[in-house]
């Protein structure tokens, strides 16, 4: 059973590091606490929805920022959604870059190409943070799978 114990420790440490580095926040704990024997895949299900939704929003944002005349309200609406969904699963750093992004969208009454550059930069940051947290979460779920496959149970949060 040594292997399982090691995996479990690895998982606990990994999750702790994700919190420590700000990738996840308390809301992720909330999700885990909503998971139980009757809903054993709750976290994976919600996070999978988040991944799908995020891909869609990133595409919409890229499209919106490619337009000749940018509709900043549309951009803001997409970022607002992204901010909401990342907040709902505890993706802390993604949420923060979305907040910054929205602040830029609201300032867009500035003439010239500056607002567009800033929005593009924000989009890049959101993409970056999103792919980071996605990788982290996928690694986390992999670890959990390994533990269960080895006959262990997931450590309580």
């Amino acid at each position: 059973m040594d292997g399982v114990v090691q995996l479990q420790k690895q998982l606990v440490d990994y999750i702790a590091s994700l919190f420590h580095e700000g990738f996840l926040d308390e809301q992720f704990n909330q999700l885990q606490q909503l998971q139980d024997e009757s809903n054993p895949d709750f976290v994976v299900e919600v996070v999978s929805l988040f991944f799908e939704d995020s891909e869609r929003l990133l595409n919409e944002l890229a499209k919106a920022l490619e337009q000749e005349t940018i509709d900043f309200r549309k951009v803001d609406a997409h970022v607002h959604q992204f901010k909401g969904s990342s907040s709902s699963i505890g993706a802390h750093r993604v949420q923060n870059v979305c907040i910054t992004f929205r602040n830029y969208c609201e300032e867009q009454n500035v003439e010239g190409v500056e607002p567009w550059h800033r929005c593009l930069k924000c989009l890049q940051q959101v993409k970056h943070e999103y792919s980071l947290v996605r990788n982290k979460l996928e690694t986390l779920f992999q670890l959990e799978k390994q533990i269960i496959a080895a006959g262990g149970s997931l450590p309580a949060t």
Partner: protein
Amino acid sequence: MAAEAQFHVLAVDDSLIDRKLIERLLKTSSYQVTAVDSGSKALEFLGIHEDEENEASIASVSPNDDDDHHQDVDISLIITDYCMPEMTGYDLLRKIKESKSLKDIPVVIMSSDNIPSRINRCLEEGAEEFFLKPVQVSDVNKLKSHLLKGKAKESQPNINKRNIMEEKPSPDRTTTNYGGLEMV
């Protein structure tokens, strides 16, 4: 069959993720849940058209139709997101309060944006509570008193205690206190 009747909550939110979350939160508290993705679907479910009252296109048999109060389904509480396309949570709240048959159903508003004027407007229009998203177990625990009292005019409206601060990127939170949460 459970000894006590289950409360039936109608949840309204255009975000699939948030619908899944609120549904789980409510079910954990043993509520029966119906989740819809828009205000108009909510009104349809409640048995009224947006313009007309007490005229449901959904044919139904209502055994206790004494007071002209007609509700197709017995909903104990409505919890709705504020920001939704087409019909906001506020618009939905107003329509519910304007409806003879629905006005006594407690309504709770959820929002990811912390805007005091928005919160006050909703509370003034008759919302029982205003929850900041993401909604917590401790928020859902507050619903019980509204459900048990029915529409209690004497209950104080509450805003869940979250930082009422200007929104800016937050530093990594150290500890947050969401009240007594049971560890599984």
